[in-house]
């Protein structure tokens, strides 16, 4: 690997980490759309900042542009508070206005500004290593590495300091304000960090990939875990993994790096959405099918329990009595037999001791509807899980 190659991957990985962390909280706060709005509406801030500083990586430009991001949020909330439109409408009203102001500013000053809309939206990671930070004659590496490194450092420090506050304000804003932990402060804190991250990253990877790097890893992690800390770790890992493998995919296919990273993010999300062990589509469908079978199983066991007479328990009669399709009856009978809940003698089905105990326990649960009653059953029974 050549050194620009390593540098590109390093920048991509750091951008991914810096995006994934605020992304987790945006996803949990159901504010994914806001990151999209910020990423577009910072454009006028970037242009104005560029007039002032003449340097896309200057900290002043980043702060100015990030301010535009926060203003977007304030405007969205203001419009929303009038009660005339919903939040998504308010977002849709605000960011095209700001974005087009940015586009007009660029067009009007096209001669003096070396900046174009494509570069802002799509970025070009491959060029990032060319813009170097020079201290005297010494080469300290790509500028965007330093910019994103600092942003990542600040983000991680804030996360460690305010983890508890972020958690409680995200989960229950009402309680937080009662506890004296201002949800408003945390909200604007998160918005500021997101804005700064978007601005810092757009030059390297483009505004669109920034949004993907914020939302996709967090949304993927959300499907896989029910623990906030793990969700953060997973998001960061997915982000970095997509960044690196996206880079190599681009290399291999001779395609855009940002595009490949975004595609990788999408593919990972899709795979997780389908195959996640608990919340994935396939496992949900499978569980529903299992539950249907198990409801039938309980119905079947209860029927056996209620009827002493052999005619009621004859294999051929079960179908008509419990009113199933033949296939279902067979599956249920097999399931019961496999678990030693019933035994079949001369085509007459009867409950085993285990089956009897199990039936009585289920009955008790159904009647009392007490969750404590099923705690011990959960282990050996699918129906009550989740």
């Amino acid at each position: 690997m050549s050194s620009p190659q390593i540098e590109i991957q390093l920048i991509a990985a750091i951008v991914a980490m810096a995006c994934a962390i605020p992304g987790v909280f945006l996803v949990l706060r159901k504010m994914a759309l806001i990151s999209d709005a910020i990423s577009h509406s910072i454009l006028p801030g970037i242009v104005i900042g560029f007039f002032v500083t003449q340097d896309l990586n200057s900290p002043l430009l980043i702060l100015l542009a990030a301010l535009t991001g926060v203003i977007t949020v304030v405007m969205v909330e203001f419009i929303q508070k009038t009660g005339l439109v919903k939040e998504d409408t308010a977002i849709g009203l605000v960011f095209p206005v700001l974005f087009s102001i940015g586009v007009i500013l660029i067009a009007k000053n096209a001669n003096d500004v070396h900046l174009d809309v494509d570069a802002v939206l799509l970025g070009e990671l491959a060029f990032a290593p060319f813009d170097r930070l020079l201290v005297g004659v010494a080469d300290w590496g790509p500028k965007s590495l330093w910019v994103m490194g600092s942003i990542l450092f600040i983000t991680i420090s804030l996360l460690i300091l305010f983890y508890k506050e972020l958690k409680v304000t995200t989960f229950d804003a009402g309680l937080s304000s009662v506890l004296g932990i201002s949800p408003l402060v945390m909200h604007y804190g998160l918005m500021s960090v997101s804005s700064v991250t978007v601005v810092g990253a757009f030059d390297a990877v483009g505004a669109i990939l920034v949004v993907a790097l914020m939302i996709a890893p967090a949304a993927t992690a959300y499907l896989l875990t029910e623990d906030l800390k793990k969700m953060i770790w997973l998001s960061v890992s997915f982000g970095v993994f997509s960044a690196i493998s996206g880079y190599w995919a681009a290399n291999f296919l001779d395609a855009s790096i940002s595009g490949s990273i975004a595609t990788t993010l999408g593919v990972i999300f899709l795979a997780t959405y389908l195959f996640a062990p608990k919340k994935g589509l396939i496992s949900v469908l499978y569980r529903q099918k299992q539950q249907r079978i198990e409801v039938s199983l309980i119905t079947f066991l209860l029927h056996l329990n209620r009827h002493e007479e052999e005619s009621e328990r004859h294999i051929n009669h079960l179908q008509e009595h419990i009113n199933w399709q033949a296939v279902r009856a067979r599956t249920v009978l097999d399931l019961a037999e496999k678990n030693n809940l019933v035994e079949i003698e001369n085509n007459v089905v009867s409950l085993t001791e285990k089956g009897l105990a199990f039936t009585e326990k289920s009955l008790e649960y159904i009647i009392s509807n007490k969750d404590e009653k099923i705690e011990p059953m959960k282990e050996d029974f699918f129906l009550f899980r989740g």
Partner: protein
Amino acid sequence: MDTQKLAVQIDDLTVAYNYKPVLWDIDLSVPEGVLMAIVGPNGAGKSTLIKTILGIIKPIAGTVSIYGKPYSKQRKLVAYVPQKGSVDWDFPTTALDVVMMGTYGKLGWIKRTGQKEKKIALESMEKVGMLTYKNRQISQLSGGQQQRVFLARALAQDASIYFMDEPFQGVDATTEIAIINILKELRKAGKTVIVVHHDLQTVPEYFDWVTFLNVKKIATGPVKDIFNDDNLTKTYGINYKVAVNK
């Protein structure tokens, strides 16, 4: 009675969302040590009243004081159980962790929870009979269990005044009795408990103080004096017949 301290005092309070008043010129005094129900129809402003007392919503007029001082100075004296539907129960966390949040107020910004906070949280969970569920994901709790977790969290706040918005919403009879017993114990310990309550039948049995609210305050006082058809009719607009056990 007259010398008794006031836990909550509200003067001339008006609250509006988008300039439409939902609470209109409320005066209300709640003496220390009562177990009070706030009753009124849907949309009467009960939740809004609690949120305003707690500073979550800013009033357009009037003042609220907790033991004679503004709420912002008295935070540590107050615990809050929001309406259950007000949070996202799919949030990735455990029951114990939610109860621990009750200790964040006394802990303050930045400081982390330690053994002490964990012990408080576990004790609170034990009191509401939720200890066995401490590591359960909150999305996997039943409605009644979620309500108990909220109650445990309020207990972990270890306050003098407890505000609860419909703690009996969607719980079965056993849980309801368990919750009311805990509330009665709080009162016995000298705490003030203020509860938004919907089941008028149980008001006389559960509470000793009641406030009728419907945008305006209709009446407030001891249940035995003011819980009658007259006030119920004024509040709910229709002729209410409730068997009041004397």
